[in-house]
């Protein structure tokens, strides 16, 4: 099973579209209300980061499975400025936007697996997975 869907993030309204898509996919997989809220919130934060820092990018959502485990994979990618200091970006409270987003550590806590690949001046790809327990 490999169902995927995606939203291009160009304007503020696309943040809403991305999280609605995420919530629908999470419901479709069978996640409970708390996990639906976690996934929706995580996608909202990732989409907002793209909008704030890279101006445009893409959120891709895939239903995945591994053995009996079902899950949802979120890929947030952009060709923005990249993250110069990933360690710092993963610290609670660190912001370069004046505190508009809760930042990446929050997203990491909401999801189960979390990975950042970033190159300065080339872009960032963040993959985050939530597994159904």
């Amino acid at each position, binding site marked *: 099973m490999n169902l995927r869907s995606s939203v291009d993030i160009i304007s*503020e*309204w696309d*943040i*809403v579209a991305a*999280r*609605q898509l995420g*919530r629908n996919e999470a419901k479709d997989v069978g996640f409970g*209300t*708390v996990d*639906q*809220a*976690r996934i*929706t*919130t995580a996608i*909202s*934060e990732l989409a*907002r980061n793209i909008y704030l820092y890279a101006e445009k990018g893409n959120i891709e959502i895939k239903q995945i499975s591994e053995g009996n485990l079902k899950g949802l994979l979120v890929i947030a990618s952009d060709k923005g400025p990249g993250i110069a200091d990933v360690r710092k970006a993963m610290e*609670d*409270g660190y912001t370069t936007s004046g*505190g*508009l*987003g*809760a*930042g990446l*550590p*929050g*997203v990491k*806590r*909401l999801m189960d697996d979390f990975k950042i690949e970033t190159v300065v001046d080339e872009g960032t790809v963040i993959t985050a997975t939530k597994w159904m327990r």
Partner: protein
Amino acid sequence: MISRIPILKLRDCLIVSIQWELDDQTALAFQEDLLAKLHTTAARGVVLDLTPIDFIDSFIAKVLGDVISMSGLMGAKVVITGIQPAVAITLIELGIRLENVVTALDLENGLEKLERELED
């Protein structure tokens, strides 16, 4: 595409029930509308009911936190009611602490709490 959130007046309080998912512009418009309404009605308290809301991200949390501080500057107390379990869990996991915010389980408790706060 901006939707306006209705703000009702009851005695010296304003009552707001947020019925649908807030996008950024609606949230910002609400911030201004509420402060304008406080100004014109001279209300002393606000109950903000979030019962139908099933998620709050950091931006919406910031707008809500700001509107509470701004209302405080205008001499009004705000009580937030109806935060769902899923919303409480995700806000804390996200790292957002709405500190110094008065909350209550539902609208009824919220109004009682607000009336008590206003008596003090």
